[in-house]
């Protein structure tokens, strides 16, 4: 039903209610008006317009029936309508919230899809460059065997030109893929840690308890979700290695550090284990590239140095404290994103 028809129908119903002979007829007219109201919700007519519609209908009523008593209108229409109006505004809000949620979910889904496309594009680009490497290399070798200025030499140079055009195209594709997948966005870290812990639980030994304690229901940082996951997974895998085949616990803690005059608000992530711990001389070197205490082939020794670099890139800090026989604790402070919806 178009909005103009609804306005007319509404005016009719008001008249019926006001001039009804008995209370049942008033009831029937108001029920019909309520149905009309539900239709307005479906059509997503804004509240102001509904108010306008009501106002118009009242004016019409006053014009056609100048002798109508205001008290009669108030008793028969205004009071039930106030209730209907409140119900309407509630229904409208629920619908609005539902729609907002749907839009947010669709955006999230799209960004996930774009990230997948980006990863795929990077993989294809890599394979293509390897193939082009073979084509360009052999065509250069072939050039040695052809007479200079021969037509074969010219044809070969065209092959090379085309190959480099393909290379440039791939470079552009990679740049595009990168901008899609690498853009730092507000990351809600509590949910992300929860998701990452699910992944970790599946891969850590059964004897290791994994606990997550957070003092806030949500907190946001500006990062790529994969970076935060990489940091957390690396720290937890190191912690699990420190615990080894024993029973042990890894505790992940999250809290907020409020802004001070010298320091902006930070999110503090702590990963603590009750494993073997480290003496001070090893502690000092854990962030050095290639430093590792793991057996050869068990790790490149790049994990913690990469994490150190990542945390720095995100504008944060990482620190370690460890006691042999007691365990180790890594503390990471990342700038909190306070102007995000996740704060509310």
């Amino acid at each position, binding site marked *: 039903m178009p909005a103009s028809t609804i306005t007319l129908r509404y005016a009719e119903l008001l008249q019926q209610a006001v001039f009804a002979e008995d209370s049942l007829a008033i009831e029937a007219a108001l029920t019909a008006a309520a149905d009309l109201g539900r239709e307005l919700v479906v059509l997503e007519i804004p509240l102001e317009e509904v108010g306008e519609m009501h106002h118009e209908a009242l004016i019409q009523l006053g014009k056609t029936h100048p002798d109508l008593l205001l008290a009669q209108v108030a008793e028969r229409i205004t009071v039930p309508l106030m209730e209907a109006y409140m119900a309407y505004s509630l229904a409208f809000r629920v619908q609005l919230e539902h729609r907002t949620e749907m839009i947010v979910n669709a955006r999230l889904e799209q960004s996930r899809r774009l990230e997948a496309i*980006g*990863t795929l594009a*990077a993989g294809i*680009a*890599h*394979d*293509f*460059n*390897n193939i*082009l*490497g*073979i*084509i*360009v*290399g*052999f065509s*250069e*070798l072939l050039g*040695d065997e052809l007479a200079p200025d021969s037509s074969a030499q010219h044809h070969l140079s065209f092959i090379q030109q085309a*190959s*480099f055009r393909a*290379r440039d195209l791939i*470079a552009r594709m*990679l740049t595009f*893929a*990168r901008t899609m*997948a*690498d853009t730092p966005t507000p990351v809600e870290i509590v949910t992300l840690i929860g998701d990452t812990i699910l992944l970790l639980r599946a891969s850590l030994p059964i004897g290791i308890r994994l606990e997550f304690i957070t003092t806030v229901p949500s907190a946001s940082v500006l990062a790529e979700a*994969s970076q935060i996951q*990489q940091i957390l997974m690396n720290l937890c895998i190191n912690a699990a290695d420190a615990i080894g085949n024993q029973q042990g616990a890894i505790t992940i803690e999250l809290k907020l550090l409020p802004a001070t005059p010298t320091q902006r608000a930070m999110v503090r992530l702590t990963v603590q284990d009750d494993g073997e711990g480290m003496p001070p001389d090893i502690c000092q070197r854990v962030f050095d*590239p*290639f430093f590792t205490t793991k057996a*050869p082939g068990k790790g*490149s*020794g*790049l994990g913690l140095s990469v994490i150190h670099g990542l945390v720095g890139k995100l504008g944060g800090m990482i620190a370690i404290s460890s006691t042999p026989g007691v365990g180790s604790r890594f503390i990471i402070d990342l700038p909190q994103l306070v102007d995000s919806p996740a704060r509310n």
Partner: protein
Amino acid sequence: MINILIVDDEELFRIMLKEMVEREGHQARTAANGNEALKAVQQQRPDLIITDILMPEKDGIELIADLSRSGSQIPIIAISGGRRSISLEFNLESAALMGVRATLPKPFTREALRRALADALAH
């Protein structure tokens, strides 16, 4: 003339690069991954290693890390089709951080290879 070890999982690429460095007047051997490369290094120490990054079994980054930990001073040129991967995989940037002498994105010209060889051997 120097001895070069070429490490790449793509056979046609190994054939091409071996031919190319031989025409530059050097000797070359090949390996298909990091494990084969480590064996080849033990058998006969090369003067220079040219290694791909993404390979099955032991990749180029692990190879560079293993050689570095064993105290090897053999200069390395890292080559790769992916300049910078968007996933967590390592790449030429990581290799550069790990102290390789030169990096060469694929595809490269013979001229670019000559420059990389000169850079790697100049130290």
